[in-house]
């Protein structure tokens, strides 16, 4: 039987409950919510004057009612040390989501740690140090002292290359402007750490270098553009599942306004199905291209559109570079960049070639070109929003592919204008404010590979779980386990030693090939199993936190509850590390170096915000953001008038492009020809294995999966991560629904549960990225592009059965995920 909560009534929010602004911290969309809290022994009533809604709650509420909340939106949490009731429900008046909650965000309350209801007891509450063969709880001072002493032994003022750092760069979750600044100030200002990486990839680099090098920031539109456009062009994206309320609240109204949809994806997703329902199948074109051939498609479209003359010549003349090559191809630039004509020459691809490479009909490419670019009968611009995400970001030839897409938007003048934009859809929210990272270099160091090859002595990890989010993961885990174990064994051998003796023992183990691992996170992660020191952090809502969403909409989440135990915001943990490093360095007589660690006397996350974000954006304060509520303000903020922050609805409305930093403010085209599967080893892997192991996220298993592994509702739906596979392929492999399979290839193996999927093409499977029990990264080879962008998507392997369906899946539904009206 399916999981049921057996809850048949909920406490009513009283009229005088405290109400806090909340932006959902799970995905990029950043839906508006409110958190209501009230004392544990109080409750509201059904009478209109006795509850927060002013509504008679003894009556059944209608669809889309404000005055209802699900059990998942309720919990009992601590606030200023007291138990309080908590309801977090969607905000009807927020322009982002208009009251919609998704299967993720609408469980925010349920996924808060609670001693009373027992939820999220996996959350870390106290620092822990590896002692006596296990992790022992201890104080912040004790843990940070050890971190500082060991770290100080491997860094000096001239060379910090033995300190490896993995740190998130995002907003929402436990990121945000406060925390990227705290960590950024420590590693990029007090130190100049160059061996670092970001939470979901093995280097510290942009995922969208080419669009930036072309002058175009990747979040240039506003969500309203989907409602104003003629065509929605989706590439490598599945917004119904991954940007849910952007799809439901903006793309769907756009389709109902008559927008057509072009979808580029080897897989038929639920997004494609929903688009057919909303726009009508005739107005949806799904180009199910061969995996990894997006660039060939874009270059064919670009060529065809240019040949037809469907370009915006005035825009090209006024706003783009005119004279051939502006930036030659080199080690930092996997493609030359320059004028429209230069790009046109380099990218030229015929319909015949494009159709053959992509495995789609020429007529469909022509149709896509018409929907994207053909001017209307009166000669006016066809408005088109292009939206892309991991399908190409983590796909073949990242630089040229994204550049090839941006070419089309540039050529047709669809940037900076109503109903236009060429944007990534995003994963987490953004919230990046750090000192320059120029010293990291480009290409950035391939951190995970350096670790495999024995480099790095101390590793600080901030909310990264390499074990689930790296490529070549089998090798990485093997080496990381081995190297951290060297240190653990040395620590175990000196149980009872003084601090100085213990530091000596650790440093000795490091010199013998070990690595000392410090893990800052909200839960005990998989890579955290290797840690020597574990430091507990808090999440959004357990601290005040600012971020911006996929249309650059910045909001302040107001703290509405306490974090677990003595967990702290990352920015304050970073400040603590800095203070301890300063002290230890001074003790060691390294005064000049110690001085670099001054300037962290922050008492709160707001202090960190003022020290960082506010220093670059003096108009923006907590108080002003609070007043802007859940609609916030779209960055960049350009002023403060009539008690309101003044933002920017769209970028580049003046046709001046500056993301590349060029004085002339002219956009560049990307002259990147198709060159097949670019990353090392991909072509051979493809020819040597039977199945494409496409991978990504699902509606229910997404940004908050680390919490959801402790959530009964989610675990009940998918006790094991699924592998979508064609039923005929299943029959050939002797598989029944729910059977466990092993996916194996030249670099490793992993497992998943077979989910029969008739819409999956033969030989093309889809599995979940980042699954705790079945890491897809195990079978992704080490190949990256020139700028060390991972190529997670193009992976091939063989499949064999390893087990009949386990008892844990016997209750599960294996029906189609596609809505049907019957």
């Amino acid at each position, binding site marked *: *039987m*399916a*999981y*049921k*909560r*057996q*809850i*048949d*009534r*909920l406490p*009513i929010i009283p009229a005088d409950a405290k109400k806090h602004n909340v932006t959902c911290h799970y995905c990029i969309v950043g839906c508006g919510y409110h958190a209501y809290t009230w004392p544990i022994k109080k409750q509201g*009533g*059904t*009478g*209109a*004057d*006795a509850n927060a809604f002013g509504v*008679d*709650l*003894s*009556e*059944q*509420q*209608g*669809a*889309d*009612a404000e005055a*209802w*909340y*699900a*059990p*998942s*939106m309720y919990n009992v949490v601590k606030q200023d040390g007291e138990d309080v009731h908590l309801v977090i429900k969607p905000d009807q008046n927020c322009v982002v989501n208009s009251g*919609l*909650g*998704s*299967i993720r965000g609408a*469980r925010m309350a*349920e996924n808060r740690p609670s001693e009373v209801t027992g939820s999220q007891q996996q959350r870390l509450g106290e620092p822990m140090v590896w002692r006596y063969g296990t992790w022992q709880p201890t104080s912040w001072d004790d843990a940070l002292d050890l971190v500082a002493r060991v770290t100080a032994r491997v860094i000096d003022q001239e060379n910090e290359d033995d300190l490896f750092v993995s740190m998130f760069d995002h907003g929402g979750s436990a990121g945000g402007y406060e925390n990227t600044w705290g960590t950024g100030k420590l590693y990029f200002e007090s130190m100049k750490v160059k061996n670092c990486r970001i939470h979901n990839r093995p280097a510290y680099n942009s995922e969208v270098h080419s669009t930036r090098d072309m002058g175009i920031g990747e979040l240039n539109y506003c969500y309203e553009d989907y409602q104003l456009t003629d065509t929605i062009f989706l590439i490598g994206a599945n917004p*119904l599942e991954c940007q*849910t309320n952007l799809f*439901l609240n903006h793309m769907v109204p756009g389709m109902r306004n008559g927008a057509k949809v072009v979808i580029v994806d080897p897989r038929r997703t*639920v997004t494609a*199905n*929903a688009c057919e*329902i909303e726009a009508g199948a005739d107005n949806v074109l799904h180009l199910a291209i061969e995996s990894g051939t997006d660039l060939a498609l874009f270059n064919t479209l670009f060529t065809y559109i240019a040949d037809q003359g469907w370009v915006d010549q005035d825009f090209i003349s006024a706003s783009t570079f005119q004279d051939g090559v502006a930036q030659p191809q080199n080690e930092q630039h996997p493609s030359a960049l320059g004028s429209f004509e230069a790009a046109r020459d380099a990218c030229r691809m015929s319909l015949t070639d494009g159709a053959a490479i992509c495995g789609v009909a020429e007529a469909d490419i022509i149709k896509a070109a018409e929907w994207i670019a053909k001017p209307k009968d009166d000669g006016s611009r066809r408005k088109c929003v292009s939206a892309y995400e991991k399908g190409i970001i983590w796909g073949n030839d990242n630089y040229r592919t994204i550049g090839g897409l941006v070419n089309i938007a540039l050529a047709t003048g669809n940037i900076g204008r109503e109903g236009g934009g060429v944007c990534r859809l995003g994963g987490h929210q953004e919230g990046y404010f750090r000192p320059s990272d120029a010293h990291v270099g480009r290409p950035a160091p391939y951190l995970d590979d350096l670790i495999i090859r024995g480099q790095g002595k101390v590793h600080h990890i901030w909310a990264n779980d390499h074990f689930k989010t790296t490529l070549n993961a089998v090798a990485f885990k093997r080496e990381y386990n081995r190297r951290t174990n060297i240190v653990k064994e040395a620590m175990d051998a000196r149980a009872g030693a003084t601090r100085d003796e213990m530091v000596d023992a650790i440093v000795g183990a490091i010199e013998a090939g070990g690595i000392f691992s410090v893990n800052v996170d909200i839960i005990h992660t998989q890579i955290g199993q290797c840690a020597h020191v574990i430091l507990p952090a808090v999440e959004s809502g357990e601290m005040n936190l600012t971020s911006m969403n996929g249309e650059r909409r910045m909001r302040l989440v107001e703290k509405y509850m306490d974090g677990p135990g003595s967990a702290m915001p990352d920015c304050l943990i970073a400040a603590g590390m800095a203070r301890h490093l300063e002290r230890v360095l001074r003790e060691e007589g390294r005064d000049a170096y110690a001085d670099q660690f001054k300037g962290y006397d922050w008492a709160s996350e707001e202090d960190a915000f003022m020290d960082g974000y506010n220093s670059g954006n003096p108009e923006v304060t907590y108080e002003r953001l609070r007043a802007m509520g859940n609609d916030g303000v779209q960055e960049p903020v350009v002023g403060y008038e009539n008690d309101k922050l003044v933002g920017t609805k769209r970028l580049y409305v003046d046709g001046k492009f500056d993301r590349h930093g060029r004085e002339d403010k002219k956009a560049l085209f990307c002259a990147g020809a198709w060159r097949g599967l670019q990353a090392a080893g991909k072509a051979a892997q493809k020819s040597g294995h039977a199945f494409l192991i496409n991978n990504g996220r699902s*509606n229910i298993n997404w940004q908050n999966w680390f919490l959801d592994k402790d959530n009964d*509702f989610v675990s*009940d*739906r998918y006790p094991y991560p699924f592998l979508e596979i064609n039923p005929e392929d299943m029959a050939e492999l002797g598989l029944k629904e729910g059977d466990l399979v092993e996916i194996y290839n030249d670099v490793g193996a992993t497992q998943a549960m077979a989910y029969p999927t008739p819409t999956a093409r033969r030989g093309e499977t889809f599995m979940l990225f980042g699954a705790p029990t079945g890491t897809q990264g195990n079978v992704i080879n080490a190949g990256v592009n020139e700028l060390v962008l991972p190529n997670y998507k193009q992976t091939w392997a063989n499949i064999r059965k390893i087990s009949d369906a386990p008892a844990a899946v016997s*209750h*599960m*539904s294996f*029906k189609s*995920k*596609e*809505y*049907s*009206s*019957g």
Partner: protein
Amino acid sequence: MSRCRKMADIGRRQFLRGGAIATSGAAAAVVAPSRAKAAPAAALLEYPSNRLANIADLATNEPLDVSYPDDDAPGVLLKLGQAVEGGTGPDGDIVGFSTVCPHKGYPLAYDAADRTFNCPGHYSRFDPEAGGQQVWGQATQNLPQYTLRVDDNGDIYAEGVDELLYGRLSNVL
């Protein structure tokens, strides 16, 4: 299930903003007395035991419209034709579910072809053969299912619900 089909159609056109589900019943304001003689309350909600239909009224794979626990809470009884976990009746194949989507309260429609309840609001779907498990969707709970009892005459009674019904903070208003 003509009722559901029609409502599904309406739902798709988004005509349902508020008031789609008829409301009734007098408001029962709760005012706590200032000096307490605490009112004793049962720990569990008292559900009515309502006769919804007789087995003879059910045809296999054709949902029968019912309401439970009151007229403002539409649902169905469904004879699946093969025993399922949680099924009742002589063949263990009769189940009952709310048909108000637990996401935002749109009316669900039954697709007899693959035996799912589908929501025109935001495409959620639920599997009555798996206890109302959400196959895919935006609701944060599985579909509320009735606790059913069948007596010797074949009369089918509902006596409880296993999840909070959409649109009410108490299943019994």
